[in-house]
C-alpha cells in the first residue's frame, strides 16, 4: 500500500541583508504577513533528516520575488544536498521554464491559479512530461455561498465556486490537486476537513491538503476524516516544538500508513 505523505512547503523569496539579496524561506498567514525562517538549502536538509516525504518549493511573487534563473540555481543547491522528491512552482510562465525546473531537481510542476486560468500549461506539461508531473494548486476561502476558489496577490480575487473550478480541472490532465484553505493558512487551527472530504469524493487524482496544520492530530484528522492522500504545511514545520518522529508515530499508531523511519 502506498503511504500517506506529510509534505513541508518551502515558500522562498529574496531578503535584503547589508545591501545584498539572499534567498530565504518564509511562512505566511492567509498568504500575507510574512515571517522569515532561514536559508533554503539548510532548511531542506533539516526537513529531509526529519523524514519529509517530499518537498514543495514555491517561488513567491511580488516585490521580493526571486528572478527565475536564480531560483533554478537555488533548486539545484537544494537537490544537490538532499534527494527528496520535489514539486516546484510559483509563477511558472511557459513549458521552457517547466523543463528548466525539471532539469534542476524538480519532479513535478506546481501550477497555480494564473497558469490554470490563463494558459494551456497544464495540457502542455502533461503532453510532454506526463500528467503525473502536474500538480494543480487551488486556493479557496469560505463565503456565505460556500467555498470560493481565489487568485491574485494575497488571494483576494474570487475565481468562482470551488466545485465549478475543480470540475473542469480533473479532465484537463492533472496528476495531483494541492488544495489550500487560505483563511486557515498559518493559523494552526486544523485543516478544513469538511471541504476536503467533498473535494476528495469529486476528484480521481491524489489530494494534497494544506492550510491550518498546527498539531499531529490535525494531520491524523486529514487522513482519517477527509481521506487526504497527503498533507502539506509551512508554519507547522517551522515551529521548533514539533517532533516529526513523534508525530509520525502517533499517526502510525492510529492505524494510518506513514513512513516512521529513514530506512
Amino acid at each position: 500500500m502506498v503511504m500517506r505523505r506529510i509534505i513541508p512547503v518551502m515558500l522562498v523569496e529574496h531578503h535584503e541583508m547589508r545591501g545584498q539579496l539572499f534567498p530565504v524561506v518564509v511562512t505566511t498567514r492567509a498568504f500575507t504577513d510574512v515571517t522569515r525562517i532561514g536559508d533554503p538549502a539548510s532548511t531542506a536538509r533539516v526537513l529531509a533528516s526529519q523524514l519529509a516525504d517530499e518537498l514543495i518549493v514555491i517561488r513567491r511573487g511580488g516585490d521580493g520575488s526571486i528572478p527565475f534563473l536564480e531560483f533554478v540555481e537555488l533548486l539545484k543547491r537544494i537537490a544537490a544536498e538532499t534527494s527528496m522528491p520535489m514539486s516546484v512552482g510559483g509563477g511558472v510562465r511557459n513549458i521552457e521554464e517547466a523543463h528548466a525546473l525539471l532539469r534542476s531537481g524538480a519532479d513535478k510542476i506546481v501550477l497555480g491559479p494564473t497558469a490554470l486560468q490563463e494558459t494551456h500549461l497544464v495540457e502542455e506539461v502533461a503532453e510532454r512530461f506526463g500528467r503525473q508531473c502536474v500538480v494543480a494548486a487551488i486556493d479557496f476561502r469560505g463565503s456565505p455561498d460556500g467555498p470560493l476558489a481565489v487568485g491574485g496577490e494575497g488571494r483576494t480575487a474570487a475565481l468562482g465556486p470551488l466545485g465549478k473550478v475543480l470540475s473542469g480541472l480533473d479532465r484537463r490532465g492533472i496528476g495531483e490537486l494541492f488544495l489550500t484553505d487560505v483563511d486557515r493558512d498559518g493559523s494552526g487551527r486544523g485543516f478544513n476537513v469538511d471541504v476536503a472530504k467533498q473535494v476528495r469524493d469529486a476528484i480521481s487524482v491524489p489530494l494534497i491538503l494544506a492550510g491550518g496544520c498546527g498539531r499531529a492530530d490535525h494531520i491524523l484528522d486529514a487522513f482519517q476524516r477527509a481521506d487526504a492522500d497527503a498533507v502539506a504545511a509551512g508554519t507547522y514545520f517551522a515551529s521548533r516544538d514539533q517532533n516529526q518522529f513523534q508525530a509520525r508515530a502517533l499517526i502510525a499508531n492510529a492505524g494510518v500508513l506513514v513512513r516512521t523511519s529513514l530506512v
Partner: protein
Amino acid sequence: VSATLVAIVDYGAGNVFSMSTALSRAGASVHVVTNAAEVREGTSHVVLPGVGAFGHCLKRLRTAGLDEFLLDWVGDQRPLLGVCVGLQVLCRASEETPGALGLDVVRSDIVRLSAPGDRIPHVGWNTIRNGGPEAVPLKGFAYFNHSFGLREHRTLTDVRWCDHGGGFVAEARHDAVLLAQYHPEKSQSVGERLLQRFVQDPSAW
C-alpha cells in the same frame, strides 16, 4: 580503479540533475549526452532517466538517432538502466500514447494502471516485494510517480513487484538492462542499493 563512466541520456525527459547527483553519490563518473556522438570513449554504462510522456520521449530519441544507438548498446550486452518512462520506452507500446512504437527490448506492453478505490497516478512511497507465494515486502520504501506500468512480462528476471490496484513490475532485469519503475534517484536506501548495483559490471549483479 577508475570510476565507472556513465552516460545519462537527455531526451527531454526531465530530471537529469537529480539522476547525475545520485549516480555520482553511487561512485560513478557521470556525463550527460543528447546524441550518440557525445558518448565519451570509455563509457561503460548508459542511463535513460524518466520524467516524461511515452510518445514524446520516443519522438525525441528517434529524432536524435538515439534509438539505433540504444538498440546496438543493448544488443552488445552492455549495461543500461531505464527508470520510470525510461523503463517504459524499452517496452513495445504504451496506452499512454496509443500508436507510438517503443524500442521493444522488453517485449511487453505498458498499460494504464486502474485501481478501484486507489488513486491514479500512483504517487508516493510504497513497498516492493519479491515474486512467489511468500510475497514479503522488502525493507525500505521506493518512491513512485506514474499512471502507467507493466502488469505482466515474459522476458524479465530478478523481478520485484509493487501493488497498486494489482501487481506491477517495480524493478527487474533483462540481460544487461536494469529496469526501475520507481525513482531510485529519489528513493534513499532502496534507490542507493539499485544504483550501486547498476554501476558495477553486470556479472556482479
